[in-house]
């Protein structure tokens, strides 16, 4: 899976490449508009992460360029401006998602995976993690072939964990993923704990292994060993 990261801020670019590379993505990056145009002209990627404000041009124009090349890859717009107009315009011209800075790398990772999955399986997709099988389109979860009933939050949590499997996910990231900015930080940690407890109980009861590890003070880690 090839990902092109277009971001002018060196540190952010480095962080994204670093995190996503460990996820097994083949990451390339561009630091300005012209460099991005050059790369788009030569290669095709599975996913593009595009910063809106770039030296030499706007990310929205890059999205148009990607679309005009008939590239099939998914596009995520990243912006420091939490502006509805940008979001609407971005989605209208063909991007798939929109993230506002500052975001968590685990969130970006989950969104990229979700986009690539949607694009590459055309509605016929499924996620397999050992004995756990998920059908994202119908939001169904099976363990050893047996369906289990999860609440919406538990389902979102499971999907988020699997997307970031093997990584330590900070509690903040989980809270934002589940509730956006609606929830108070202090409260949300308790609620996360409740949801995780329920999810873990349901998974284990149905015969799945306990993949969830608590990382002291910081968050959680979902891993197979």
């Amino acid at each position, binding site marked *: 899976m090839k990902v092109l990261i277009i971001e002018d*801020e060196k*540190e*952010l670019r480095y*962080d*994204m490449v*670093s*995190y996503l590379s*460990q996820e097994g993505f083949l990451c390339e990056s561009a630091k300005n508009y012209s460099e991005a145009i050059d790369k788009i002209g030569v290669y095709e990627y599975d996913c593009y992460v595009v910063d809106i404000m770039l030296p030499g041009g706007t990310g929205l124009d890059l999205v148009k360029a990607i679309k005009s090349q008939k590239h099939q890859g998914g596009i995520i717009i990243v912006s*420091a*401006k*939490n*502006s*509805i107009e940008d979001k609407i315009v971005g989605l209208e011209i063909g991007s798939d998602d929109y993230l506002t*800075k*500052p*975001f*968590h*790398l*685990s969130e970006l990772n989950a969104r990229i995976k979700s986009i690539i999955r949607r694009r590459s399986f055309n509605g016929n997709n499924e996620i397999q993690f050992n004995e756990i099988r998920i059908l994202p389109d119908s939001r169904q979860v099976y363990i050893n072939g047996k369906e289990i009933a999860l609440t919406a939050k538990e389902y979102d949590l499971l999907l988020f964990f699997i997307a970031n499997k093997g*990584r*330590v996910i*900070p*509690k*903040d*990231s989980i809270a934002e993923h589940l*509730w956006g*900015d*609606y*929830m*108070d*930080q*202090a*409260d949300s940690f*308790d*609620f996360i704990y409740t949801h995780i407890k329920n999810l873990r109980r349901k998974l284990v009861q149905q015969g799945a292994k306990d993949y969830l590890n608590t*990382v*002291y*003070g*910081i*968050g959680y880690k979902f891993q197979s060993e």
Partner: protein
Amino acid sequence: MKLLQRTTLYYLLYSLFIFGIGTILFYIFIKVILLDGIDEAIHQEKVQLVANLNYEKIGEGLQPSKDVLIMPAREAEVEKDKYKTIPIYDSLSKEYVDYRQLTSYHKNEANWYKVTIRQPLAEAESLLNSILPVEIGLFLILLGGVLLMNRFILAKIWQPFYVLLDKLKKYNLETTKIIPYESTDIIEFRDLNINVEKMTERIYKDFLTQKEFNENSSHEMQTPLAIIKNKLELIIQSKNLTEQEMIHIQSIFSAVKRLTLLNKGLLLLSKIENRQFTQKENVNLGELLQSIFNLLEEQINDKNISTEIEIKSKDKLLTNRVLIEGLFNNLVSNSIKHNVQNGKIMAELTDKHFIITNTGTQLNFPADEMFERFRKDSAVENSVGLGLSIVKKICDFLDYKIIYIHQDGLHTLVVNF
């Protein structure tokens, strides 16, 4: 009261005073002069009469008119000439008429007699009586003239002033920007216009600079925040962290989160100030409110808060979706955040207003500071203190009225659409 009206009022009061005094003095002088004249005339008549008496006999043709009376008198009654004004009943007109009367005693040969000469004062009185109406008439003409002139002055001379005043009243930094200089031939108004232009120009420049600064600084803060957040996420992937280090990292995460929220709040405030939410659409407020309560359900349940939500609104409201969502979200979140365990929230939504009431502890600051930035209840952690100032700003921008009421331990916020 208008400036011109006030000065005119003083002028008129002074003229009224002068007219009043003038009328009284005039009346007295005229009266004195008239009486003097009449007295002089009857005196002459008496002199003539007395001269005639020396060679004519009393009683024979010596009763020249009904206004002249000659009567014998005793010596003891003799007095000096005396003038006085007396009312005499007139049987014709059936009323008393004033007369000026001279009583004089004279000796003809051996006999004293009394001469009484009268003259009616009717003419003199009618002259005197005409003074007041004439003066009142003059005063009214003056009054009318002054009022007419005022109209003219207001319409013409003060025109530039009222034009400017009107512009200042309607002045809005966003739309008017600068009040341009308008030429006028009155020096004071010209100065005023010139200086208003200079002043608004300066204010507008400052406003632009500040606006730009607010938004830019908030934007610029996003990137370093993003870097901190991302670096932390990379650090925690390390397997060699001690528990103590992890606790520190969690604290940094919290601090970054708080900064992020603060920054987002400030950015939203400056966006509202920069009028970036002018687009309006029809919003179903009932659905919106319900969805916000649903999103916050866990927090509500966590504090075991009971809710009574009454949605009576039927029509959609033409408003800005982002702002109205921000408004509801902040108000509902606040009602949970500042609530007590086992508390209560009552919300009522109609087409006209939104009322939200919650149980909670007493405010530890004056209620009128409630909508100020960074005014927060110190008991509530993680509050950045921007929620209600965002609410206020949104209400101001959308032209909604918001009122806070505290009664019987209940906090109520009313928004009138």
